[in-house]
């Protein structure tokens, strides 16, 4: 393709300031400067918690928005990531000195309550922070790989994939709740204290963790942007829109799907690990069917095709949830239900779609000469053609 003045720069992420990068800089300024200055530490920690869901939403933008694979089991990966981190922190908090009143000192308190006498074998490696950090990304990615391999190689997709991922979310929740002695049961893993001796419960630590989280999120957005702008990203879009045609062109469609599913899983898991660090516990209530499908709505509200939209959508939905549940708890489910229906029927492109339709044209007018510089927050996102939106 010949590059005209109208075409967008491809493959050069940092070559010049284009619409996407401008949008990311704006988001970075908001997260790193505006919010920390404007909010007290309690609210900032809450925003940090919301931002961990944004990792999941980013994964869904690639997986669902770009490639058309709707996973209703992202909570699994968020949860596994969180649990891996929580297991490390719990072991550190359960040193023999700290737990000497237990009948078996040196094991986590909930194991002691469930009459376990020794640490189960799969807990052993989590004494090491390196192992735990690797496991945060590796375990979910491996699980996603196995599930993806089994399903995509057999050309199972669409609705069936959604239902089966949902079943996995149900299975994992029942398993965690049922195996109380090994997992902490319905309460999850609580009372986490220090990371390598550094107390994560102080305000100062929360501030540091917030910045780490925000920086990681920006990094992940850049990574996703890179993936989307690569050839691979465009093959994903192609297989969403006309899978057979991509297959007949000689691509192994399944491999691309497996990759994007694993990538989304790893992103969710990073979010889960950051969640554990910032909130100080992990429980099965972030794993099951309801949270998993709620995570889809974060992505849908922001616009399923827009990376930045996913972040704003996550922030907005969670902020609304907190506000409504604080003052009108019974209204929240109505609002949530209406959001699901509205986002599907009225504005399928979410906030990003509204932005492109109403705000971007106004912004573009004053700088008409530089169309590509002001093409919008996420100009790479086309409007979904109605017949390809889902299948």
């Amino acid at each position: 393709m010949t590059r005209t003045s109208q075409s967008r720069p491809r493959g050069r992420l940092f070559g010049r300031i284009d619409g996407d990068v401008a949008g990311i800089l704006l988001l970075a300024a908001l997260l790193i400067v505006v919010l920390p200055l404007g909010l007290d530490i309690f609210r900032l920690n809450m925003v940090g918690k919301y931002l961990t869901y944004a990792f999941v939403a980013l994964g869904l933008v690639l997986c669902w928005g770009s490639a058309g694979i709707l996973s209703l089991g992202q909570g699994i990966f968020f949860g596994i990531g969180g649990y891996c981190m929580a297991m490390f922190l719990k072991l550190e908090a359960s040193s023999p000195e700290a737990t000497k009143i237990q009948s078996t000192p040196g094991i986590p308190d909930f194991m002691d309550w469930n009459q376990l006498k020794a640490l189960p074998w799969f807990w052993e490696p989590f004494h090491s922070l390196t192992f735990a950090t690797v496991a945060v990304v590796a375990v979910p990615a491996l699980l996603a790989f196995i599930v993806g391999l089994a399903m995509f190689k057999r050309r199972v997709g669409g609705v069936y994939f959604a239902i089966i991922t949902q079943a996995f979310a149900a299975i994992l929740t029942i398993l965690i709740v049922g195996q109380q002695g090994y997992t902490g049961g319905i309460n999850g893993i609580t009372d986490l204290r220090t990371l390598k001796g550094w107390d994560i419960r102080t305000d100062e630590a929360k501030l540091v963790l917030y910045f780490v989280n925000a920086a990681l999120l920006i990094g992940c957005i850049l990574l996703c942007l890179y993936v989307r702008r690569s050839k691979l990203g465009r093959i994903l879009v192609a297989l969403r829109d006309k899978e057979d045609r991509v297959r007949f062109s000689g691509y192994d469609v399944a491999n691309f799907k497996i990759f994007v599913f694993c990538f989304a899983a790893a992103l969710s898991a990073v979010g889960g690990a950051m969640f554990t660090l910032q909130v100080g516990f992990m429980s099965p209530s972030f794993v099951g069917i309801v949270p998993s499908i709620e995570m889809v709505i974060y992505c849908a509200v922001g616009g399923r095709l827009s990376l930045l939209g996913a972040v704003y959508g996550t922030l907005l939905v969670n902020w609304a949830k907190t506000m409504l549940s604080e003052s009108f708890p019974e209204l929240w489910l109505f609002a949530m239900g209406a959001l699901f229906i509205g986002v599907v029927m009225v504005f399928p492109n979410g906030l990003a779609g509204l932005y492109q339709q109403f705000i971007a044209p106004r912004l573009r007018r004053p700088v008409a000469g530089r169309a590509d510089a002001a093409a919008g927050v996420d100009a790479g996102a086309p409007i979904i053609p109605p017949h390809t939106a889902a299948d």
Partner: protein
Amino acid sequence: MFEGYSLAELGSIFAMQGFAGLILFSVFVLMALGLAIIFGQMGVINMAHGEFMILGAYVTYLCSNFISSTAPALFPAYFFIAMALAFLASGALGMLVEWAMIRFLYRRPLDTLLATWGLSLILQQIFRSVFGAREVGVVLPDWLMGSVAVTDTIEVPINGLFVMGLTIAITIVIYAVMFRSRWGQGVRAVMQNRVMAGAVGINTEKVDRYTFGLGCGIAGVAGSAFTMVGSTGPTSGQLYIVDTFLVVVFGGAQSLIGTIASAFTISQAQSTMEFFLSGSTAKVLTLLTVVVILMLRPQGLFVLKVRR
């Protein structure tokens, strides 16, 4: 896991658990039949199916209260009135939902899934606001209480027998409607080839609406039957929805016989294992087995050969 039981005891255990499994089977079948019509025939994912079932359960609850306070003479038969009302209420709501929402989404199954999930949240909250968060139960008429002793060690509860009889009757009715009536022929024609069915003069939009209504109505009846064996809360429907979807997918989405066979397998496996292992382990093992089999055989147990 079998140590400590004599052979006779094991036999009784299997018989009793088998019967408990049959009750679970009945609930699964009733729920899955509605879903099999909506999902299998129409290709619509209705995540609010559980809530349509709970609507039927609440209608039964209201009906039992109303009849016991105004016309106690009718009380022994209230269940049949309640069942008809539950069918009408859920069916009418289903048709309304189809008209307002589903008909715009036929080509976007994943979006239907999200939209109906939203609907299920709204319905749940309505139930909670109207009936309260606590579970409610109905009073069974005398003739449904008690149990039949088959042998010294095996006892069979009458309400369970009744629910099973009901399930069989409803299954036969649905089979007759779908495969023996002219209307059912129209439904199957539309689902197999919409354009052609329209061309030969079938009003496809009307067929869609009534089919969806029928599926939801059956869910209402399922809810009505559900009150006989368990209590009803605003979120009871959500507990069953994933299991039911697995039942339908496992059986092969287009096959009603497959749905029944898979409901039977899943419920029996679960309730037999439940006695020897803990409830949660039994459930995990059952679901995991189903999911693994589905991965190996994505088309389900029974496949209807349809030229697409």
